[in-house]
Every structure is written in C-alpha cells, then in structure tokens.
C-alpha cells in the first residue's frame, strides 16, 4: 500500500484498485492468522452469560474473572513454573552438549563426519511415539517418573539434533584461522572453543537456544507421559487436561491458553528475525 508508484507485482489494475485489492487480501490473511487467537482473547474476557450466546460478538463489558480464576485458583501457575524450569534446563543442556559436539563436527578431524551428521538428522525424525514406552519404563526404573528431571532431560535429547545441526553450520561460518591461531597460541581445543569460538558465535547460540526453548515449552507427548501430577505437569499438559467437571469452562480455558502462549508468542515476536534465520539455516542445510 505504501509503494503505489512502484510497478507492483499484482499489476494490471489502476493504482487505487490495486491498493484496494491488496488491502483486502492482506485483511483476509491477517484474519486467518490472527483471528483464532483474537477470538480466544475476546472469549477470555467475556462474562459467563455471554459465553453461551452469540451474538453479541463483543461483550458489553469485559471481565477479568477468568484470569483471576485461572491464575489464583488453578494449578496453572505451578505448571507455568514447571514449564519454565523444564524449558530453561533443556535449553542449557542441549546448547552446552550440542555446542561441544557441533564444534567437533565443524573443526576437528573425525572419521565419518557425513555419516554422523546424517545420523543426527535421522534421530530428529524419530517419531516420539516409537520411543515413548521404553522411555517411560526406563524413567520408572530410575525413579525419575513424574519428575521435572525426566521431562527436561528428554526434551534436551530430542532437541539435541536441531542444536547440533544449527551450531555446526554457524561454527563453519567462522573463519578457521581464528581456531588455528588460538591453537598455535597454546589453547587446547576446548579452551579455544570456550574463549574464542563461543563468544563469536553468540548470535548463532541465541538462535539455537531460542528454537530449543520454544520446542520444549510446546512439547506435549513426552510431558504428558512422563508426568502424573499437578506438581510436575507442564503448561501444555495443563491446558490439554483442563479440568471441567460437567462442561468445559471455555472462558477459563481461553484465559489459560493465552497465558501459556504469551511467553513463546512474545519471544517469537521479539526475535522473529533470529527465528527465521534458524528455521532457514536448520532446514536449508538439511
């Protein structure tokens, strides 16, 4: 709309009709992308009486009751804390372990690197359902069932291929002279990684960390299977098993949905450019 003078690619119309057409298409796309979430936002502030009738689309007065109930009287806050702990530790573990492995793959001589990388890719394609029952039995044997450790560790491992893949490509972009210079100066490879490579690869690390965090925050099947009580459930599990005695409390559910989405949607909006870098690097190199 802002560049009407330019020969647009929708060509063939007068400038005003073209702008109008563009506006309509954009509006449709916007409604498609944002509509469902906006409707959830409207629902979350509707008084209970307005939930069971349509019209009106918009309520005459908004209420904060659903948020109050969800945040003060339900285990949602606990599950948000759990999700935060799980996602943060999964991110830390997979970035630390992943950057070691990625560095070895990017800079050190190892036999069969393509095989290893292909293998990493293959692991990321494992259907979670294929490993879930032995994993469940294993965690039960280790006494880790229904603990955050079990969920965090599992998330870290299943995010590891993504982290390794991304970081390998980021490390390869750094000039290898930097590494050799550090080696000549007497650094061990580990020290060269920590003091030279990692500080330079900070943007790449941030991208990988962001994607792992979002993956872990949103993951459902492992979290559902490995937890069994309110004190360990993560946020998506809490939303999926939202308690409804006779009827689904749609207003509360809407409020809970938005609260759970807020952290990741915020991250995505703030770091949208980095996420795109990660998604394209992670897959185009695939």
């Amino acid at each position, binding site marked *: 709309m802002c560049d009407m003078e330019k020969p647009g690619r929708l060509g063939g119309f007068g400038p005003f009709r073209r702008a109008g057409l563009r506006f309509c298409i954009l509006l449709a796309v916007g409604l498609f992308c944002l509509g469902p979430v906006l*409707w959830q936002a409207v629902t979350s502030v509707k008084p209970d009486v307005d939930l069971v009738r349509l019209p009106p689309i918009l309520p005459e007065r908004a209420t904060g009751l659903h948020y109050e109930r969800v945040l003060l009287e339900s285990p949602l806050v606990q599950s948000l804390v759990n999700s935060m702990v799980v996602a943060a530790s999964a991110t830390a573990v997979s970035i630390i372990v992943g950057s070691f492995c990625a560095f070895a793959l990017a800079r050190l001589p190892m036999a069969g690197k393509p095989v290893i990388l292909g293998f990493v890719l293959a692991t990321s394609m494992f259907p979670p359902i294929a490993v879930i029952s032995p994993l469940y039995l294993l965690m039960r044997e280790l006494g880790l069932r229904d603990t955050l450790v079990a969920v965090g560790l599992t998330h870290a491992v299943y995010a590891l291929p993504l982290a390794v893949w991304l970081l390998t490509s980021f490390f390869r972009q750094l000039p290898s002279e930097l590494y050799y210079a550090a080696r000549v100066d007497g650094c061990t490879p580990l020290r060269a990684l920590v003091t030279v490579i990692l500080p330079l690869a900070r943007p790449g690390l941030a991208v990988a960390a962001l994607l792992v965090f979002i993956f872990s925050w949103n993951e459902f099947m492992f979290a559902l299977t490995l937890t069994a009580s309110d004190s360990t459930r993560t946020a998506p599990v809490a939303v999926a098993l939202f308690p409804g005695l006779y009827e689904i409390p749609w207003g509360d559910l809407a409020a809970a949905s938005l609260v759970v989405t807020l952290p990741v949607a915020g991250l995505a909006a703030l770091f*949208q450019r980095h996420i795109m870098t990660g998604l394209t690097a992670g897959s185009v190199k695939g």
Partner: protein
Amino acid sequence: MTPPRFTGTEGPTGLLRLSERGWGYLLAAPAFVLVGLLALAPIMAALWLSLHRRLPIFGVDEFVGAWNYLQLWSDDRFWAACRTTLYFTGLSVTAELLLGFGLAILLDSLTGGRDRSPRWAQVMIILPWAVPTVVSAQIWAWLYQPEYGLLNYLLLQAGVIDARIDWLADPDWAIHAAVVMDVWKTTPFAALLLLAGLKSVPQELYAAARVDGAGAWQRFRRITLPLLMPIVVIVLVFRTMDAVRVFDAVFVLTGGGPGNTTETLSIYAYKTLFQTLQFGYGSALATAIFVIVAALSSLYVLLLRRHLRESL
C-alpha cells in the same frame, strides 16, 4: 570478547595431550552418550518389547516372536489408522504448500524491491507457528463448538449453511476440521521458508525475463519455481514427517473420535500403550510407525539429494 590467553609452550600431561582427533571424539562424546541412552536404546528396547506379549496388569510377559506383527497385519483398526494418517498428511501438506506459496508471494510483493518484508507482517505470520499445538487445538475446539462456536455463527449469518454443524462429532467433518487446524498452525512455517527462498532469487532474472516479454505466469514457472525447488522439497520433507507423526493436535482436538474416524497411527499406538497397557502390541505399532517414517524419509532424502545437487 576476550582474546585467547597465551600460555607459552604447551607442556601438560595426560588428557590434554590428546590429538586433534581424540579431542573431536571427546567433545562429541556427551552428545552421543545422551542420544544413545535416551533415543537409540529406547528404539532398540521398543523392538525387543514388540516381540513380547506384555500386559503388566495381568502379570503377563512372554516372548512371542513375530506374533504381534502378524496380529497387526490382520488388524482393521491399524489399517484404518494408516488410511486416516495418510489422508490427513496428504491433504494438510498439499494445502500448506499451496497456501504457503501464496502467502510468501504476497509478502514478497508487499516489499517491492526491498529485501525485507515489513516487520509487522512477519510477526503476524509467525504467531500461529509459535502457539503451542495443544493451545491451538483448544482454540479451534472452541471455534468448532456447535452451539456457541464462532464458525457456525459466521457460516449461518453468511448463509453458507442453514443448520448448525457439529464439526467434531460428525465422522465426515472431524478429520477435515483437524486438517484446517493443522493448516492454520503450520502454513506460516512453509511461508517463511519459501519467502526466504524468494528473497534469494536475483531480481535481474525477472527484469531480463520481462524484457524478453515473459508474462507473470511464465516468470513464475520458468524462474521462481525451478530456483525454489530445493526449498519446496525441504518444506515437503519436514511437513510430511510432522504430519505422519501427528499426535497432540488431533489427540486434544478430537481424541481420535468420533468412532475412531480421526484416529491416527500415533494416537492408536498411544491408546494401546497407555490406556489398555498392552506394551508388546503397542510397541509393535510404534515400530510400524517408525518404519513408515523411516521409509518416507529415505525416499525424500533421495529426492532431496538430486534436487540439491542440481541446484548447486
């Protein structure tokens, strides 16, 4: 950034004397151990379990060889789940690719010659991608709600339908309702990848084609599509893998109902494992899914290699 500290000649003993190659294996080891322990060992264990009849509640645990797989072959519910999964995958991946392409072209045209789309447009598009799948299932369950759901209301007002439809309880509609939700959630991923591809097409090619009198369709067909082929294949691979494994989206939206009409392979396996606690048979199901995914992905890898080689 701190410069590497110069430590003079290196004279440490033991571990630090490792060769470069040795360091490589040492640094890669933690990742291998974790993946081996929590991904490879479970896969092997699942294979092993699938050769057993194991029902913990009855204390049954016996080796039965390929019996579970023979059962699987004659299990109608398994074949129905296969059909549902493939139908879901085919429909949603096709729609995502086409819509994603449209969206990417639209965003690209918004920016004219600049190499970045407006930030607000990208944020808007990335939002559905960031929404947790479980949340998106709940969002759509509310939209589909028969009496107070927005969808029925809008369609009634517009005169498209003349009676409320219970989308999730109708055997014909339910799977399509799940597809629409999946398309909403994942089209942004496709669009963003394709957009990145569009940005990398040199503008001079279009200009040259225009000089030669090529129309918009010809420019798309002869320039955009061939250059974007690698990305199209990648989108296909990633989306197909995710759709074949689909669990949370459909599980939360319909629970596999009504009457198992939306039961995908993962949901069937999950129910067998954790609701009826048949660990042996469930593992055979899970192994079958693994084989299907592996077969599909190796097929794609072959495709991908040819396309990547052509584009390089």
